């Protein structure tokens, strides 16, 4: 005769076994999907690499033809995501005329719309991703939308918004920080200095003085550091 105690144990065994089987099914499905996506991504990247090299080095006619070829590859969201990742890598590695061409490609393929949609998504990590893409590719039209996020309730969004603004419009964004309320993390601070070191700007004596007169002690310290790292005229 099975007691109540034993009934509970049998029930728990059935639950554990069922969950194990379900999880294993999900594991194998995930493995299949991940393997397929990984192979697909490799194929797309291989094709894109050649097209992007030709685009960067080609003349205007060649670039127009390559855009059409990329558009044919760019039908799915997954492929667009891969392309944006490649453009981000190129932007980080190139400057001058090639960076400008990367940016032009980003706009011609309307990938900025994808990034803007992420920025407008209510989920915080989508906003982060949108800000990261727009600021790395220096899509300055997003400046106003991103500046609305410097007082967002989520800490990560706030921090990334401040850094993204500096990436987009260095001097204007710095002067916006003058009225910043609340604290600034050392990460944000370090990132701002690093961005300005990579893209040096010249602040006038008056601009430095205005930053130094900020109520926020972090902005004050930033102003002194900017002066020290010879960003002041």
């Amino acid at each position, binding site marked *: 005769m099975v007691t109540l105690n034993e009934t509970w144990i049998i029930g728990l065994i059935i639950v*554990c076994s069922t969950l194990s089987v379900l*999880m294993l099914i999900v594991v194998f499905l995930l493995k299949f999907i991940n393997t397929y996506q990984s192979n697909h991504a490799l194929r797309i990247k291989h094709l894109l690499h050649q097209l992007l090299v030709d685009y960067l080095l080609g003349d205007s006619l060649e670039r127009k033809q390559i855009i059409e070829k990329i558009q044919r590859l760019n039908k799915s969201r997954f492929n667009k995501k891969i392309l944006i990742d490649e453009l981000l890598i190129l932007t980080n590695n190139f400057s001058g005329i090639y960076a400008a061409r990367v940016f032009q490609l980003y706009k011609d393929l309307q990938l900025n719309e994808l990034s803007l949609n992420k920025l407008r998504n209510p989920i915080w990590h989508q906003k982060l991703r949108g800000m*990261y893409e727009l600021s790395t590719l220096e899509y300055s039209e997003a400046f106003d939308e991103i500046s609305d996020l410097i007082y967002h309730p989520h800490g990560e969004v706030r921090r990334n918004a401040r850094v993204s603004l500096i990436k987009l419009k260095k001097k204007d964004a710095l002067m916006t920080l003058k009225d910043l309320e609340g604290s600034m993390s050392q990460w944000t601070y370090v990132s701002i200095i*690093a961005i300005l070191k990579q893209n040096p700007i010249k602040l006038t004596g008056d601009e430095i003085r205005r930053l130094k007169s900020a109520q926020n002690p972090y902005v004050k310290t930033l102003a002194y550091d900017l002066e020290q790292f010879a960003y002041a005229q």
Partner: protein
Amino acid sequence: MPSSLYYDIAFFFNYSILVYACTLMFIYIILGIVSIGAIRAHLKKRKSVNFDNLLRSPLAPKIAVIAPAYNESATIIENIRSLLSLRYNDFDIVIVNDGSKDDSLEKMIRAYDLIPAKRESFSNLPHAPIRAIYRSKNEAFRNLLVVDKENGGKADSLNAGINNTNAKYVANIDVDCIIEDDALLRMVEPFLQEIDVKMIATGGVVRIANDCEVRNGRIIKVNLPRNLLALFQTLEYLRAFLLGRMAWSRLNGLLIISGAFGLFDKSILIEAGGYKKETVGEDMELVVRMRRLMHERKERYKVHYIPDPLCWTESPTSIATLIRQRNRWTRGTIETLLDHRIMMFNPRFRILGLISYPFWLFFEWMAPLVEFFGLLYFLVLLVLGWVNWHYFLLLLTLVYSFAFMLSCFTILVKELTYKEYPGIKSILTLLGVALLEPILFHPIVVYSAIKGNWDKFVLRKSNWGSQVRKGFGSVKPKEQIPSIPIPKEQTVEI
């Protein structure tokens, strides 16, 4: 015929064991669910973090990577080379030669052009006497510092290393671990991101490196180990790090940062008194003491875990070595729990005293003891012929099926997050290991824990024991290195 006393005793033990087992299972499920949320949030955030800014920044805080070394002649040169190639703006590598009896020091001196340097102590943590400090005259190795001291153990060596650096953060590692080249960037990020709360320590996930392809001190290809014992430990490490520590980190109740790789705020570490030489669990004991210090200072703080695999270590492949290792871990846990028993259910220590400490006491420490006494109880009943076989087999099946389910959950979390073991074969291997683990591996772990308790409470043991390491590459035969005369006049100012 069993008397009514038997039924009373049996009722008590049966229900006690069942309640204990169900409570532990429930806690593991909760930890697993919390973990998966924490890992997913981390991975989503990580996609948008630009570590290059920190890499380029002149304001990146200085980190000292401190690695005690004892008789590491076979691999020390390669280990140091891999540490020197870490990607970070401003860091020192501090190798503490803990009175090695082999030619580790001579090899380092020759390979890295070391010459005696001026001694400069930045703090006063206790340690064995230092014989000499060495720096390289080669500009390429300017951030390498070797501290040669008399033997004192790992904790002693770490204290010596900490005293000889002016870095803001110290990363304490095992010298034979392989650290990912961007590990310092990832580990220091939480310190710099926090505004309202002080970050005092971060830890990274440790993975098993047995049979991985290693070249120039870097993992080139991740493979599952071929040795069965190492496979069991791979699954165990996945479970512990992915499910356990991430959850505790999210709850801010983490009691341990792995001794293989952890990053600490140096000022807090020193104020807490540094590493304690008297314990074999110095890694756990330090974290608990640092946390206790912050509670006593009434300051808000955090200990954070990063779920990225940042450190790869060699696991024991023989049962004897594994038993010694787990024995030491058990004794270390006991020593820490005893030293800090004031925290037990003490609301002054909040989650640490009300949840973390009791969990470690009643489950991490006590679970093997409950199993062992459960086994003894079973043997007594067997001798007396009073075993309720039906109930016993049901209970055994429940425990086995739960253990297997937890392993399946671990594999699922691994596939959802870090997919470092490629191919269907790896999943099938891990599943096979999950089926065998409760039968073959778990008894060894329980035995080691029981022995650890015996050694601690009865034999009063307090030493480390030895661990045989094979190294990641082929081990060259020991060369006969002549001792190198060190010119007394040629020193370098730090």
